[in-house]
C-alpha cells in the first residue's frame, strides 16, 4: 500500500465528500448500499517519517471516516462479533451510535463491558476475534473487508478523551473489605476497577516504579502512547484505588502475609508472563544479545530512546537480527530502527502465513524497511575478541510434509548454513512464567510450565487467592487478560458478598 492511501488529509477530504453524498440521499441505506461502502483506511504517519520518531504510527479515523465506517455495519441479527469479543462488548450497539453521530452514546455502550477501550482499540487482534466473524467480512469472503470494529472502538475512546468529558465510574458505599491486586497490567486493572466498584477497598501492588505492566514496559509508544495508559491508571486512582509501586509481592511482602498480617480478604495475582525465553544456542550470552523484554523495557519504561536525557543506556546498534515472529518481535525490530539501526532483520523459522504477529504490525514493519528472513533459524551467535556479537550463523528451512495437525512444519536444509554479520541480536521467542510468586508462596499449585492453576472462577489452590492473565494463560493478549480479570473480579465480589 502506498502512503497516499493513508495520508491523513486526503483521507479526511474524501470522507467529508462521501458523508455529504450519503446525507443528501433521500432513501435510507440498504444492506446493499452499506456493503458498497469502501472500508476506511487508517490515517498514518508516512513510513519514511515515522521510522525516525517514536510518535504513534496510526493517527485514528476522523469523525467523518468513523461515521462512514460505522455505516458499513449491516446490524445483522445474529451478531457474531459480540461472541467473538472476549469481553462481549455490544458491538452493533456502539457502532450504530457512531453511524448516527452520537459518539458519547457509543463510548457509554463500550464502557459497560470494557475498561480499556483506547488500549484495546489499538492493540487487540480484532482480525482474529470480532472482525474474524463479522458478517460483512464473511459476505465479502475477505476478513480485511470486515467492519473495522477496533478502529471504531479506538475512535470512540479517543473522542471521549479529547472532549475531556470523561466520567469516573460510580463506586458503591464502603464494605470494609480489602482486596490486594498484584501487578498493574490489563488483568489487574480490570480486577481493581470491578472490585472497587462494589465498594471494596483495593490496593494494587506494582514491582516497577510506574504502573501499567506490559502496556508501559513492553508495547512501544509508537503503537500505544503511554499517556493513554496513564489516563486509564488515573481513572483507577480517582475511583479510590490505592497504587503501591516499588513493591514486589513475594519479596517485599509474602503473598500469604498480605492476608495474614495486612488484613486483605482476597488477593488477585496478575503478575504476567515475565521470564524471557532464550534459544539455547551458542553465543547467547555475548554482549549485544538481549531479550526483547530487556530491549523494550530500556526503551519504553526507562525512556532510553531519549538518548540525551535518559540515564538508562541502550545498545548502539548498526545491524540487528530479531529472532521470532510475534508482535513483540515486530515491536523490537521497529524500535531498533527508530533508535538508529541501519538494517534490521526478522529471522523466523516458518513462513509469513504462520507468523503469529498481527498482519497490520508485519505490514507496518515492512513499510518501515524491516527485512524478513523467512524459513531461517539461528544456529549460533559468534563473538569478537571482546565478547561482543559480530555475526549470526543461520540455517535455511523448508516446509515439509503436513504433520498430524495438517500444518506443514519446517525442516532444516542440511548444509544450508550461512553467516550474517550483525552487532545486535534480540531474542523475541516468548516468555515463561515468572517464578517469584510460586517460589515464595507455599501451597500455590502450578502446572509444569509454572503457570498458576485456577478453577472456572479463576480461584487458585489457596482460599481467597485468585489469578488471571498471562500468569495463568501463558503469553496471550491484553483483551484475553481483561476477560480473565473480569471473571476473577466477579468471583471475588461474590465471595466477599457471601462472607458478609
Amino acid at each position, binding site marked *: 500500500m502506498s502512503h497516499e492511501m493513508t495520508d491523513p488529509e486526503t483521507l479526511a477530504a474524501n470522507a467529508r465528500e462521501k458523508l455529504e453524498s450519503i446525507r443528501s440521499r433521500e432513501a435510507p441505506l440498504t444492506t446493499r448500499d452499506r456493503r458498497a461502502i469502501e472500508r476506511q483506511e487508517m490515517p498514518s504517519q508516512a513510513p519514511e517519517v515515522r521510522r525516525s520518531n517514536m510518535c504513534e504510527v496510526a493517527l485514528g479515523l476522523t469523525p467523518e471516516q468513523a461515521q462512514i465506517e460505522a455505516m458499513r455495519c449491516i446490524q445483522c441479527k445474529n451478531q457474531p462479533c459480540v461472541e467473538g469479543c472476549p469481553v462481549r462488548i455490544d458491538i452493533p450497539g456502539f457502532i450504530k451510535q457512531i453511524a448516527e453521530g452520537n459518539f458519547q452514546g457509543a463510548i457509554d455502550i463500550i464502557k459497560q463491558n470494557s475498561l480499556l477501550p483506547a488500549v484495546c482499540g489499538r492493540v487487540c487482534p480484532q482480525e482474529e476475534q470480532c472482525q474474524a466473524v463479522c458478517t460483512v467480512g464473511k459476505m465479502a469472503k475477505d476478513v480485511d473487508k470486515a467492519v473495522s470494529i477496533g478502529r471504531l472502538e479506538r475512535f470512540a475512546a479517543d473522542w471521549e478523551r479529547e472532549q475531556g468529558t470523561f466520567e469516573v465510574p460510580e463506586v458503591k458505599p464502603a464494605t470494609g473489605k480489602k482486596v490486594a491486586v498484584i501487578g498493574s497490567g490489563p488483568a489487574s486493572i480490570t480486577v481493581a476497577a470491578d472490585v472497587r466498584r462494589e465498594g471494596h477497598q483495593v490496593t494494587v501492588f506494582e*514491582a*516497577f*516504579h510506574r504502573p501499567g505492566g506490559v502496556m508501559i*514496559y513492553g508495547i512501544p509508544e509508537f503503537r500505544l502512547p503511554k499517556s493513554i495508559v496513564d489516563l486509564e491508571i488515573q481513572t483507577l486512582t480517582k475511583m479510590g484505588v490505592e497504587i503501591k*509501586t*516499588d*513493591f*514486589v509481592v513475594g*519479596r*517485599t*511482602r509474602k503473598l500469604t502475609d498480605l492476608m495474614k498480617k495486612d488484613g486483605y480478604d482476597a488477593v488477585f495475582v496478575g503478575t504476567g508472563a*515475565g*521470564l*524471557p525465553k*532464550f534459544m*539455547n544456542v551458542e553465543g*547467547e*550470552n*555475548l*554482549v*549485544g544479545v*538481549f*531479550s526483547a*523484554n*530487556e530491549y523494550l*523495557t*530500556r526503551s519504553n*519504561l*526507562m*525512556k532510553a530512546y*531519549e538518548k540525551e*536525557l*535518559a*540515564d*538508562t*543506556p*541502550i*545498545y*548502539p546498534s548498526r545491524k540487528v537480527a530479531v529472532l521470532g515472529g510475534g508482535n513483540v518481535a515486530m515491536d523490537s525490530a521497529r524500535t531498533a530502527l527508530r533508535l538508529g539501526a541501519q538494517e534490521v532483520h526478522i529471522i523466523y523459522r516458518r513462513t509469513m502465513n504462520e507468523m503469529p504477529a498481527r498482519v497490520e504490525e508485519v505490514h507496518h514493519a515492512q513499510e518501515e524497511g524491516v527485512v524478513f528472513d523467512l524459513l531461517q533459524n539461528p544456529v549460533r551467535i559468534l563473538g569478537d575478541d*571482546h*565478547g*561482543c556479537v559480530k555475526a549470526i550463523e543461520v540455517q535455511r528451512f523448508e516446509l515439509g510434509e503436513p504433520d498430524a495437525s495438517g500444518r506443514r512444519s519446517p525442516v532444516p536444509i542440511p548444509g544450508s548454513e550461512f553467516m550474517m554479520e550483525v552487532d545486535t541480536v534480540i531474542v523475541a521467542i516468548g516468555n515463561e512464567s*515468572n*517464578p*517469584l510468586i510460586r*517460589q515464595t508462596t507455599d501451597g500455590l499449585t502450578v502446572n509444569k510450565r509454572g503457570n498458576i492453576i485456577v478453577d472456572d472462577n479463576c480461584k487458585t489452590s489457596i482460599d481467597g487467592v485468585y489469578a488471571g492473565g498471562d500468569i495463568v494463560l501463558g503469553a496471550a493478549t491484553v483483551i484475553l487478560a481483561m476477560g480473565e480479570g473480569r471473571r476473577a473480579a466477579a468471583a471475588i465480589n461474590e465471595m466477599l458478598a457471601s462472607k458478609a
Partner: protein
Amino acid sequence: MPLILEKKQLSADVFRLRVQAPLIAEERKAGQFIILQVNDGFGERIPLTIADADPAEGSITLIFQRVGKTTRLLSELNEGDNIAHLVGPLGKPTHVEKVGHVVVVGGGIGVAPSYPIAQAMKQAGNKLTVIMGARNKDLIIMEDEMRAIADDLIICTDDGSVGRKALVTEPLKELCESAEKPDLVIAIGPPIMMKFCAKTTEPYAVHTLVSLNTIMVDGTGMCGGCRVNVGGEVRFVCVDGPEFDGHKVDFDNMMSRLKSYKEQEHSKSCKLDAAIKAKEAEMAQ
C-alpha cells in the same frame, strides 16, 4: 519516597546511607539487595546490596561507591532528602547453616554486602574468619563491625599501608592448606577478585560462593539482562542468585557483559562532571 536518615562519607568515593524502608528492613535477609532510582523521570535503576538493617527503626543501610552517573547523583543527596524509588529486598537470601569454619572474603566495596552474611554465619554457630582487601588503608571499610564478629580478621592492602601487603587470595590459599581448612568460602568483591578466589579454592575442593552484581533493569526476572553462565546453564542473578557456586561461574563472560554500556556510561558521567564543574565555577564567581 524513602527518606535519607543519615549520610556518611567513608572514603574518597565510598558513602554510607541509612534510609527509611520499614518493610524492607523487616523482610530482608543476608545476601539480598535492593534496586533504586535517584530521579523519577529519566533516572536509571541500579542494584545495591543491603549492608545492614534495623527493623525496630525501620531503616536499611546502603554502602556504595561513586562510579557512574547514578551513584554520583546518589552521593549528592543529603540527610533529609528522598530517594525517588527503592524496591526490595530482591534476590534469594544466603543459605545459612552451621558448616564449621566459614571464611568470608570481602574486597573493596564488597565488604559491605559480605557483612550481613558474615554476621548470619557467625550467629549460626560457625567459626568465622574474615579476609578484607582494598587498594590502600583509606579504602578499608567496616573494619570495626567485622572485628566485632570475626574470630579472625585478616586485612590485606595492595600497598601494605595497613595489614598485609598481599592480595586476598594469599591468606585464602594459606587457610586452605592449613589445619583449619575452610568448610565454606564466601567471596564478594570485584569480579576479578571473585574469579581468583574461586580459582584459589578449587584445587582444595572448598565449596565457594560468590555474590554477583550484574547489569539489571527490573530485578524480578523479567529482563534477563543479568544472566550469567553457571556450569553451562543460563541463570538469572536477580531471581536465581545473586549467590552462585564460584567454581561454576563463567567470570570472563560476566566481566565482558558488565562492560556492555561502558562507552555510554562514560559519556554520561563526563557530561555530569562538566555540569558539576560549570556549576561550581558559577558559584565561585
